[in-house]
């Protein structure tokens, strides 16, 4: 058993020796950089443009104000003309000087001059300042081709990077939080640690019923409204519901402790927490995750990316719960935990400060593989057209354009390569972590 606290350095030292894992880690940093700076890599607006003797910095100016409108004087008619930054096609303007970003197209921008699967090597066109449609110069070319509606594949890949990374990170954070919470409870408390009076135990049933009724059933409208409003409101409303739910169960538990004369009710019985949570994990083990993810995602009429992340995260959490449970079961019987209990430390303190740090290794290794799986799951969903909004360009949705026309090889190869590299990176990092933390870990 290692102390994670002082072996952080040690872990990094072993991890660093694993060359594929280290290279993957640097690749991941590079991907994060691409995701963070995606607006400066693929954008239909230039970084700098000199137009009618005025200097513009469209990307920065749009950044500061989304609806920025400037006025310029038309040199011929001497009249003011409006220049609305986000809808102007800068490629069509007679610019005196311009600095484009490497890919001068935005992710979901439809290029009407290059529609219908234009291959990277095929002739491509653009409308020049004189309003003529001419072959595009090298800088304005779609170097990775376009799809059926003229979206630039390279721009889609760049913006898809941030979506793929976000899906992996957020869904596995959700899975990690829920999984560790339930796994820790099941493993630490087991079936014979928590004892409550029989009356409390029986009163749990009406408690759950009342908690459901006041916490969820009559608040269903509020919850739905919050889900439509935004993430912060949703979390707030969920917390209120969880609070009401736990409060009512707590009340029932307190009532159950009343000093009754009937000894049948007063007798202490064990709460088999482990059995409940293990059954729950078993249910999710018997149905393949992807089938459940696809089914549940298709239930929601409204498509949204956060929802997909929540579904993937929620459905992956039983696997983490199982790993955490096994570690907690193992560790809670070790001597140092018994010592801690003998010293009178509280359950929370023992779980959080004494067991959790030593139980995290397999969870961390699994998280790395889980991120790879979450990215595959999300791209599968986008590939099938389920769950992810149609106007969100992801690697999976780009790849699915290849299904409509198999001659468009660039629609399959480039997004496919992106998915493959990301999945491989996370898997290699997972292998490296396994080696660094404990080679015996099996996930």
């Amino acid at each position: 058993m290692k102390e994670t606290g002082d072996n952080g350095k040690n872990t990094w030292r072993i991890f660093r020796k694993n060359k594929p894992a280290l290279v993957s880690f640097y690749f991941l940093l590079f991907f994060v950089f691409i995701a963070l700076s995606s607006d400066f890599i693929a954008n239909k607006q230039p970084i700098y443009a000199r137009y009618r003797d005025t200097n513009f910095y469209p990307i920065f100016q749009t950044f500061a104000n989304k609806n920025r409108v400037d006025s310029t004087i038309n040199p011929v008619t001497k009249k003011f003309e409006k220049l609305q930054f986000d809808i102007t096609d800068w490629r069509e303007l007679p610019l005196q000087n311009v600095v484009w970003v490497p890919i001068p197209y935005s992710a979901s921008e439809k290029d009407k001059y290059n529609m219908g699967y234009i291959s990277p090597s095929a002739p491509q066109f653009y409308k020049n300042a004189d309003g003529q449609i001419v072959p595009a110069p090298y800088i304005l070319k779609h170097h990775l081709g376009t799809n059926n509606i003229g979206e630039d594949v390279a721009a889609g890949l760049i913006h898809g990077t941030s979506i793929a990374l976000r899906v992996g990170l957020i869904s596995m954070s959700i899975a990690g939080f829920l999984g560790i919470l339930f796994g820790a409870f099941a493993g630490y408390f087991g079936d014979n640690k928590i004892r409550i009076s029989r009356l409390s135990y029986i009163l749990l049933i009406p408690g759950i019923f009342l908690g459901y009724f006041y916490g969820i059933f009559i608040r269903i409208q509020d919850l739905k409204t919050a889900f439509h409003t935004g993430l912060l409101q949703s979390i707030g409303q969920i917390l209120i519901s969880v609070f009401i739910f736990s409060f009512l169960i707590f009340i029932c538990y307190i009532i159950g402790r009343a000093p009754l004369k009937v000894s049948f009710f007063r007798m202490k019985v064990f709460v088999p927490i482990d059995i409940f949570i293990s059954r729950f994990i078993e249910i999710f083990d018997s149905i393949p995750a992807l089938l459940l993810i696809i089914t549940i995602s298709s239930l929601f009429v409204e498509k949204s990316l956060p929802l997909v992340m929540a579904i993937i995260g929620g459905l992956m959490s039983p696997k983490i719960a199982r790993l955490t449970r096994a570690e907690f079961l193992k560790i809670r019987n070790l001597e140092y935990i018994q010592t801690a209990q003998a010293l009178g430390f509280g359950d929370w303190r023992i779980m959080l400060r004494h067991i959790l740090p030593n139980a995290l290794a397999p969870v961390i290794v699994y998280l790395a593989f889980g991120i790879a799986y979450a990215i595959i799951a999300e791209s599968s969903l986008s590939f099938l057209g389920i769950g992810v909004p149609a106007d969100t360009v992801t690697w999976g949705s780009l790849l699915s354009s290849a299904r409509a026309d198999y001659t468009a090889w660039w629609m399959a190869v480039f997004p496919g390569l992106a998915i493959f590299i990301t999945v491989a990176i996370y898997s290699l990092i997972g292998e490296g972590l396994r080696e660094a933390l404990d080679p015996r870990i099996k996930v």
Partner: protein
Amino acid sequence: MLSYIIRRVILFIPTLIIISFLAFGISVLAPGDPVERLLNASENAGIQNKAHQASLIQKKRHELGLDLPLFYFSISTLAESNKSNLSSYQAWKNYIPVIHYYAGHNQYHHWLYNIIFRGSFGISYQTQLPVVREIKARLPWSLALSFISFLLAFGISIPIGMYAARYKGRFFDKASSLLLFLLYALPNFLVATLLLVFFANPQFLNWFPESGVQDALNFNEDWPFLTKLVHWAPYLVLPIITYTYGAIALLSRQMRAGAVEIFDNEYIKTARAKGLPEGKILWKHVFRNALMPIITLFANIFPTAFVGSIIIETIFALPGMGREIYEAILNYDYPVIVAVFTIFGFLTLVGYLVADILYAVADPRISYSKS
């Protein structure tokens, strides 16, 4: 052993019931009205006037039992339960829970009753055929594909894993590990698309047909089975490759890991010292002992073979279970979804049991009767 199996089955029953709840819940929560869907699917939908259609919907709903309550009981507020009496509406009635109890007159009970006593999973909304018949028509394709690819995967990956373990750290081990890792990281929809782009594409290699399992113009139902098989074969090559490659990666890695552990044992050294031929050591001493982790994977064969693969069958337009589920999901065909989930849970139980029995057969030290 027997008592272990019985205990295992009894423990699994609550899980199975909850899986059926889950499946039932999914179908109830699904958006869209199944009856309207059903009527729209039937031919004479557009002709009737609205009033007639409404009565038709009512009738159909009654026929399918969809007008019954969902479960044995339901929860509502006091205000909701005496909705008919509007004059007595008061705000506080929104905060009083009411439980209704319906006894056996509910959809779930009828559904369960039909499965257990009639072996019927209801009627598909989409095709209007019994779900069991639908599944029977689709299942052979999924089973055939899965078993062919499992056999292929075992046949290829066992030697790879064994030799990689035997020559650990040498060129063969490193090369095969790298290749298998690359295969492992490739998602199946990507492989399927790439195969179609490069091998079923007039611009590159047009070796295989793009999708489906048969040519509608040439195929003849009366052909002898062998002729049919020859006709089907080219359609199945790409799907089988897609099915197999992932399994090869997984199995080989497992096989190698298992065999590497065995090679470290003293008795292998003893066998070598005795002068046993290397082939005998490899296949008689190492292979048999390294087989245990592979057996675990048997548990997954049944359910996986049953459900096929949603993505692979959708891409290649194969008439298997995976595509059936996908279409059912897209068309809100609840009876099919619920049936598949329930059967799936059941098969997982069978898989676990088979794996447990295989364990006991493969390793006589394992005994279930003690614990």
